[in-house]
Each structure stands twice: as C-alpha cells, then as structure tokens.
C-alpha cells in the first residue's frame, strides 16, 4: 500500500528489471558455511579490497555481492521486505535509505562500533553511515574551454561564454533513474535555489546529457565526449582523477555537498549476525584506514596527518553535509518529488518518452 504511490516509478521499471539481473559476485572460500548477501549501490572497484579483507578476516563467511542502482535498490528492498534475500543493504541514496528505516523496513543493530559512531552518522541504530564524501565536478582538462571553474557561478559563466563547446557536453544524473542523483539535485535546490534554477536552465538550453550511473559520466568525461560532469560522487571521481591526467576533480567553492554512504540491515534479514559483523568491520579503524590509504572511499575518520591526501576532503569553501535525519523525508515527499522531477524535465526539455 505504502509504496503504491511510487507506482509512477514503474515507468522506469524496465531499468529495474535489468538491474536486478546483474551478476552476483562471490567473495571468500566457497566452502564457507555462512553466507552473507549484500545488496549495494557501491561500485565494486571501490569495495572489492574491503570485501577481500573481510573474508580474509572471517574465513568461515562467504559474501555474495550484488551491485544495484540506488533507486532500484530501494524498490528491491521493499519488494523483498517479507523475505529479504540480502542481509545488508548499502546505498549512497541516504534519503531512500532513511525512508526505508522510517517506514519500518530495517532492524536495529548495536555494537561497540556503532556506539562510537557520532549521532549524526546514524539514525535509530538502524541506519549507519560509514563514509563521508564530497560531491564534485569532474572536468576534462584538455577539452574544457578557458579557466577551470571553481564554483557554480564560474561554471555558468563558462557555459554562457562557450555555448558551442558546452552544448551536449555536460553530463549529470538522470534524477528519474538514479536515487542518489535525485538526492543531490534536491539538495542543490535546497542549498541554493536560485543558482540551481539558473544551472538547470543552462543545462536545459545546452542539452545536458543524463546518465544513470557515475561511471558512465566519468568514462565520457575522460574520453572527451563530455567536458564536465556535474554532481559526481567524490570517491569515484577522485579514484579516476588520480590515474588519469586528463581529469580534474573540482570541489565547488560556493558550497560542497557532503554525502554519506549508509548501510542498513533489513527486517527479517536471514543473516543479521554476519551483517552486523560486516558493519562493524566497515566501521573499524582498519577498514576506515584502508578506504583512505588505498583510495577507495572517504572515511568518516580520516587520518589528517597526510597532507594533500586525495581522500581527505579539502574543500575550498563551505561544506554542506547532507544530514542523516528526518529532513531527508521532505525531499522524498510524493508531491514534492513529482513536482521536482516535472520541473527538472521541463527545464531540461525532456519528456518521459525520451
């Protein structure tokens, strides 16, 4: 019943079907007796070393990792709520995750690791954040006309001054397909309504390209098909920018959104015990350090001794941490969401049929 009003989302159900079909990746000894199913919207590239480390530490557990798009992950979790397959669900769409908890799809978990987590990084002992990363712009240094934009205003200016170059060469999330894309857009609108309006207008008039997933945007920026990717997850962008000279990651100076990746254990999870174990592992100093040192994710507790570490947030301006609390529900309000997406579609001059 409750998810009935999400019915309109069935429009994108074709993607859902596809997403659910993705392969499950196994980690650990195949003879291990305990199986932990993880549904996650976290790219394996950023997560694989952590998973390997986990099964090395707990050889009697094997992990089945299922990569799912954030929005699909939400629907999958609701769909499976009576008999969940996954015991741990990880997502960067904080708002959807919070809504899952608010609507009673998660169970509580408590350990010494969750206890030391600051209150702003957990909710109700059911939702736990384990990383905090900036939302960035990624620029192709070679293709970008003029100076690197340092904030949204200078980006707008560049777009206006280089209309030809910029047309069809800016990429961002399709907020209808990506849960985290919607979250970031709605947070942009909330942080700076006017700037957001202008940006949206500029994106619309220059045929912005929309994507479902961060990696596709990054790939296109790297190849030069896009000049700039807007609102990308910092961890993926940082990872690629390190290896690829053509790419430059920019933390907008006017404000930098900070996003948490969060995990929950669904109510009735088949293996809540090991899910808790994995959660503790994610929150342990060991894996937090690993995230930073191996350049996987932005940890909650970064080691600040390393200067210029790409995985320590070094924002030039103010940071707007997306708070993990009930406010996130507002963004996912049925009426607000419908209106927001309609406005977005209108501004970008795209319709459902596209």
């Amino acid at each position, binding site marked *: 019943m*409750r998810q009935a*009003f999400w019915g309109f989302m069935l429009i994108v159900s074709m993607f859902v079907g596809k997403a659910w079909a993705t392969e499950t990746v196994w980690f650990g000894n195949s003879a291990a007796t305990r199986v932990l199913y993880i549904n996650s919207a976290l790219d394996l590239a950023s997560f694989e070393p952590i998973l390997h480390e986990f099964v090395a530490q707990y050889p009697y557990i094997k992990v089945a990792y299922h990569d799912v798009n954030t929005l699909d992950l939400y629907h999958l979790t609701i769909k499976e709520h009576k008999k969940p397959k996954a015991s741990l669900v990880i997502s960067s769409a904080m708002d959807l995750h919070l809504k899952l908890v608010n609507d*009673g799809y998660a169970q509580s978990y408590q350990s010494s690791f969750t206890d030391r987590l600051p209150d702003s990084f957990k*909710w109700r002992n059911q939702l736990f954040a384990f990383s905090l990363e900036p939302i960035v712009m990624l620029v192709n240094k070679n293709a970008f006309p003029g100076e690197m934009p340092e904030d949204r205003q200078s980006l707008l200016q560049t777009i206006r001054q280089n209309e030809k170059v910029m047309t069809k060469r800016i990429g961002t999330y399709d907020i209808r397909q990506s849960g985290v894309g919607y979250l970031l857009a709605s947070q942009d609108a909330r942080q700076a309504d006017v700037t957001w309006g202008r940006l949206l207008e500029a994106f619309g008039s220059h045929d912005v390209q929309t994507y479902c997933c961060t990696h596709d945007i990054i790939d296109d920026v790297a190849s030069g098909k896009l000049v700039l990717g807007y609102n990308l997850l910092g961890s993926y962008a940082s990872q690629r920018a390190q290896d690829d000279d053509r790419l430059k990651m920019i933390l907008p100076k006017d404000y930098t959104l900070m996003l948490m990746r969060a995990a929950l254990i669904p109510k009735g999870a088949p293996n809540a015990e090991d899910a808790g174990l994995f959660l503790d592992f994610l929150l342990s100093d060991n894996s937090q350090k690993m995230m930073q040192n191996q350049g996987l994710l932005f940890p909650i507790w970064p080691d600040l001794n390393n200067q210029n570490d790409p995985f320590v947030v070094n924002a030039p301006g103010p940071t707007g941490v997306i708070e993990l609390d009930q*406010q996130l*529900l*507002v963004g996912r309000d049925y*009426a*607000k969401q419908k209106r927001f997406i309609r406005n977005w579609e209108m501004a970008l001059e795209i319709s459902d049929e596209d």
Partner: protein
Amino acid sequence: MWQKSLNHQNLSEEEEQSALRKAPSLRFRFILTGFLVIGVIASLAINLIFDYSQKLADLSYDRLLRSALLQMDENVGLMRNEVSIDIPWSAFATLAQADEDRVFYKVESLEQGFITGYQDLNSEPPQPPVLDQMQFYNQEYSGEMVRFAWIQRHLTDPETAKTVRIVLGQTRLSREEMASSITQKAVEVVVFIALVAITLIIIGSHLVLRPLHRIERALEERAMGDLTPIEINTPKETHHLKVAINHFMARLQTNLEQLENYTADAAHQLRTPLASLKALAENARDITSADPHSTDLDSSERQYQALDNIVKQCDALSQTVTLLLNQAVVSHRLQTHRLEPIDLLPPITASCREQAVTALHKGVRLSFDCDLKETMILGDAFSIQQMMQNLIENAVRYSALDAQNDTEVIVQVSEFERFYRIKVIDYGDGIPDLEKERVFERFYRGRYDIAGSGVGLAMVKDIVDHHSARIEIVDTEPKGTTFQVDFAKFQYHEGVL
C-alpha cells in the same frame, strides 16, 4: 489490703527473654507506622510523577509537532484549482529535534482525496473534526505508537473552495525518553527523601524512647525500700508517666505506712491484754503457792475467781483480735471495692439485731427507730455494718456504766433533703467537749476504766471518710452522747451516668 498477683513467681532469665521477645515493641510500631505512611506518600508521589512526566513530555514535544504542522499548513495552496503542498524542509528539521523518532504524515483534500504522504494512514481524528482546531492523539501506525497532530481547514479562492486535512505523526521514543528521565530524577529525589525520613524516624524513635529507658534505669537502680519520687529531668511527654510512677510510689508508701500502723496497732492492742493476762495467770499461780496455809476452800474459791478473770480476759482478747480482723477486712474493702448503690437500712438493722442481745445482757435496751422505706446511698454494706457495730458497741459500753438504771441506746435514721442521717443516741455520761475532737484518734481512749481497744472509732472515722460522709458528736439531752452520721443520698441519674 492489696491486690496482688496470684502467683508471684520469679521468671527465669530465659523466660524473661522470651517474654521480651513476644512483647510488642513500641519502637517497631513507631517505625512500621512511619514506614507505611512514608511508603504510601512516596508511592503516591511517584504515581503523580509518572503521570506528570508523561504530560510534560507530551506538552513539550507536541509543541514541535504543532510547529511542524503549522509550517506544513502554511505551505498548502491552490494551484490551478488543485490543492498542492510544498512541505518546507524546516518543518521536518523541527521534527528532527526528536532525533530518533520516525515521522509519518498524510495530506488529503476531502474533494481530491490523497495528495501526499502515507496513503494508508488513518486520517480520522478521534474527536469530531472541527475546522482549524488542532487535535493531538496517540494511534498505532507501522507497528509503533505514534503521536499525531491533526488539522483541517478550508482553502478558498474566488473560483473554488477546498477542504484540506493534514495529519502529522511522530513516534514516541523521545517523549518516553524525556518522561523516563524526568521520572527517574524525580523518583530518585522521592526515594532519597523517603530514605532520609525513615532514617530520621529510626533515629527519632530512639531519641523519643530514651527518656523511657532513663526512667526504667532510674527505677532499676533504686535501692530497696527507696520510695522517694523520681527526680530525673524528663520531657513533657514522659512527665505524666513520671508523675504517675511517683503517685504510685506515694500510694505504695501510704499503704506501707498503713501496714506499719496496723502492725503497730495490732501489737499495741495485743500487748495490754496479754500483759494483764500474764498478770492474771501469775496471780492464779501464786494463789496456791504463795499462801500454803490458807484453807482449800478459800484458795479454790480464789483460784476459780482468778481463772474466771483469765477467761474474761481471753474473751476480751479474742474480741480485740476480731476487731482487728474486721478492721483489716474493712480497710481492704475500702481500698479495693468500688462503692455501689445500696440500701442503707439492711446493714443498720443487721448490726442492731446482732447487738441487741449483747446489749440486753448489759442492761441496755437497744431500739431502732426508722419509718423510711428505702434509703439508697453509694456505699459498701459491709463497711457500714462494721461502722454501725462499732458505734452501737461504743454507745452500749458507755451506757452500761449506769447499770442500775434501765438505760437505752436509740438508733435513728431520718431523711433530709440531700442526705440521710443516722443517729446513735445514748444516755451515758457523755463526752466532754475537749475530748470530742480526739475520740477518733487511734488508740485514744477517753476512759481507761472502760474496756475498749481505742481503734473502733478510728475505724468508724475511716469508713465515714471513705464514704465522703460526715460524722458529728453532739450531746444528748439531758445527758449522754449522740453520734450522727450523714450519708449523701444516691441520685439515680448519677448512677446511670
């Protein structure tokens, strides 16, 4: 003379201990009562606190809910004749102050139906809906008790009018937490106060009972035979106990003195007759031995005379002993028997009847003069009979001196407004005025030539005093003495009361 315990036994140490154990403890009762009272008060207070802390928590968090609801309400509008709402972020930021509480809401219009929120939420308030009047209530939703705020209002613009209803709910976690933290603090305080109070009661009971222990020690430590009043300083509350003990000791002392007096009386009474008995016996012994030359007849005549004297003396002695016994009995009765309504006449007539023959032997006519039917007084019949006996005996004895002439003793009972007067009239020699005051003194004997114990009238005086009666000695015309005793009439209503 006294009431005594029937079997006065010395309890063994063990029995004493067990008796002490079985005895109810004043201190225990005091503490128990204190405990109960404080317990009841404390539990009442805790009950109130529970109630109050719930109310307080609801009051504070309802404000958040109200504020959030109003913010939502403010953002409801009509767009193209459709109700729409743009929930402000700040509304939920307000609710996020209850950090762990889930939020549920529903916005609907009576015309349009569901607008946004949780569609399966029951939006019917428990009380009849009144426009623009906010309602707060608890209702279960999504497996938890949720506090809801409800409002309904009209939206009008020139073209259309719609009714919009907003329900906003919040789980009760923060409320319960606040309530329980208030309760916990308050309960801690209440329990602390109760403990302090109980401690004070325990200490207080010790302090309060200490004067009793002091009195107890003072009594225990006394030397045998020490009947002087207790003179320790005690608080007001135990003052009466001290006074009572002192009174009791005073009474005991009086009793002891009476006993001493009585023993002295008895010794005194018995010594004289015994001495004369001894003299008579010696006399009888000497009759034969002293004068061996006298004739047998003469000596046996004198011996008979001497022995007769001894017998008479023995009679007198036995009479004295009886008198002493009677006195003891009367004294005992006066102390132990309560006065009760009796008819005055039977004891008087009884004693007259008893004495009439003896009097006649002595040549005295005893007459009883009374035409009253009923003479109720408050008194003790036995004592009154003894009193009459003594008075009549006395009158007869003093009348009989003049044995040649026929003389008489008259006992008269007459009625006055408030009392009955008994008169015992004799026509003897009378008592000189000087002696009238002294006749009631113990061992006072007006004339030693007349046999008598000297205690009879003293006993009469005791009895009269005990009855709160009045005795007077007046002269009889032309000569002789009249004893008159006035007994107050028994008032029936007094008796009933």
